[in-house]
């Protein structure tokens, strides 16, 4: 039992700025509830520089409309001096730094995502922006759109044209963390439409996570990243020349077939951690490592790679997995762990082939994790 008085206000003993900071981690709807805790708390939620909306129950366009109204009401009540109910300008006036807008429409294929309020795109104070399930139409060229944005997370987004998407990225000069998944374009595009953005300055980008994006993301713009997770797909004709040298890359997760994996490794001279996960269903048939030249051995294998994980999948042939694993074990001189994720059935064959295989690194340990091969 605590020796404090029963009436001690434990959390309210913290200064306002800390309380606001705590509230910034809580969904906005709940943060507003704190306004009825005590007098001190009436206005605190308004000073939280973060808006965090997660709504998981949007089943119809009516739900979406209701949600939009809620967002408007929040922005409006943060700044009572505005008489207009328009959502324009409200986000900017509120000096918002963190914005999470996640919508989940239950029947995505049947509903059209709502249009992203234009004021979000002109909210220049943003530091973190996370959006899910919106349609973005025109993005005007505006070089300093998000001068402070460090984290951008876009999921299930429809852009009108690929130029709109690229212009958005162009407006984030200090971006450090980029996550993209399921980005689609309404208007058709060709692969070279992205080439003009290759010199896009994502110079400060440290982490990039790009999955389920079936277009030619300008990978050259990612040259400075330290962490990269990327999903290559069948139409991606950019290897090997389309890849830059990743001077700072220490952690790479990429889907594989043997040849491709080796080619990608050529571009990662300082790689320490490698994760190879199953290829997509639209991928190539298995290709095998054809040459075993010393010349073709990627630098990172001989000098920096310390951990490697290879994940098995239902459509992967054992032969290709074993070939890839043995190639790496044979060439990776400072490898500490090679981990294979597979099911128990295939495990014994993999283990028998790999455990006695000569390893370039004396400290290399082989380990296994058991998974369901149907899990991606």
């Amino acid at each position, binding site marked *: 039992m605590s020796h*404090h008085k029963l009436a001690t206000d*434990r959390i309210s003993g*913290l200064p306002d700025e800390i309380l606001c900071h705590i509230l910034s981690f809580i969904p906005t*709807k*709940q943060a507003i509830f704190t*306004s*009825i805790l*005590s007098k001190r708390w009436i206005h605190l939620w308004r000073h939280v520089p973060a808006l965090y909306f997660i709504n998981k129950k949007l089943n119809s366009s009516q739900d979406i409309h209701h949600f939009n109204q809620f967002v408007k*009401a929040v922005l409006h009540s943060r700044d009572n001096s505005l008489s207009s109910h328009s959502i324009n300008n409200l986000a900017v006036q509120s000096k918002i730094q963190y914005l999470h807008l996640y919508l989940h429409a239950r029947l995505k294929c049947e509903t059209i995502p709502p249009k992203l309020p234009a004021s979000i795109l002109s909210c220049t104070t943003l530091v973190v922006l996370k959006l899910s399930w919106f349609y973005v139409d025109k993005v005007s060229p505006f070089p300093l759109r998000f001068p402070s944005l460090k984290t951008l997370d876009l999921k299930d987004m429809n852009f009108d044209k690929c130029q709109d998407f690229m212009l958005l990225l162009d407006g984030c000069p200090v971006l450090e963390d980029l996550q993209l998944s399921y980005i689609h374009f309404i208007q058709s595009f060709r692969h070279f439409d992205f080439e003009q953005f290759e010199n896009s300055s994502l110079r400060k980008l440290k982490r990039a996570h790009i999955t389920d994006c079936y277009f030619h993301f300008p990978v050259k713009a990612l040259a400075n990243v330290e962490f990269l997770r990327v999903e290559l797909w069948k139409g991606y004709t950019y290897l090997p020349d389309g890849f830059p040298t990743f001077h700072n890359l220490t952690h790479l997760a990429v889907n594989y077939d043997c040849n491709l994996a080796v080619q990608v490794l050529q571009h990662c001279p300082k790689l320490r951690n490698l994760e190879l996960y199953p290829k997509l269903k639209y991928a190539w048939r298995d290709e095998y490592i054809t040459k075993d030249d010393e010349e073709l051995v990627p630098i990172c294998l001989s000098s920096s790679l310390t951990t490697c994980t290879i994940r098995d999948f239902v459509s992967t042939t054992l032969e290709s997995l074993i070939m890839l694993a043995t190639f790496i074990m044979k060439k990776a001189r400072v490898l500490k762990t090679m981990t294979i994720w597979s099911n128990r059935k295939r495990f014994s064959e993999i283990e028998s082939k790999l455990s006695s295989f000569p390893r370039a690194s004396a400290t290399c340990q082989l380990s296994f994790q058991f998974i369901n091969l149907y899990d991606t």
Partner: protein
Amino acid sequence: MASSSSNLISLKTSDGTVFKVERALAKTMKTVQAIIEEADANIYMIPIHNVFSHHMDMIIDYYKLSVAGKSKEFSVEKLDNDELKDFLLAVHYLNMEDLFEVLTQAVADRLEKKSVGYVRKYFGIENDFTPEEYAAIRKKNDWAFKGDDIEPEEDEEKQEE
């Protein structure tokens, strides 16, 4: 004995314990770093007010875990709300960015998805509204309260009184 050329910095907590910490750890404490930079070359001991030895123990634990890349293993679950609040204040005083984020997230986690009545009881926040004031503020923010699973629980309020 610590001098500015050694790798260890001496920090003295409010309860009088002296901790010798690596310079790299002291660097994560912006308050301490500012003191070091402003002082002359021969600072021997830096007093850190509002920070107790049990806070320093946890700070050192966190530092060791984050250096080993295991900062996610750091947990404050065993701390009760008072202890968590005090720790948060100490870390805030020392101006340690990363650990501060971890602790505010931890407090937020304890608050999230709980009803207002629960939050009030759990953290011992005194309701200083008169019934009229309370009704007024509820009405004013009514648009936010309707139609959601986190209904402010008035029943708990009434039971308290």
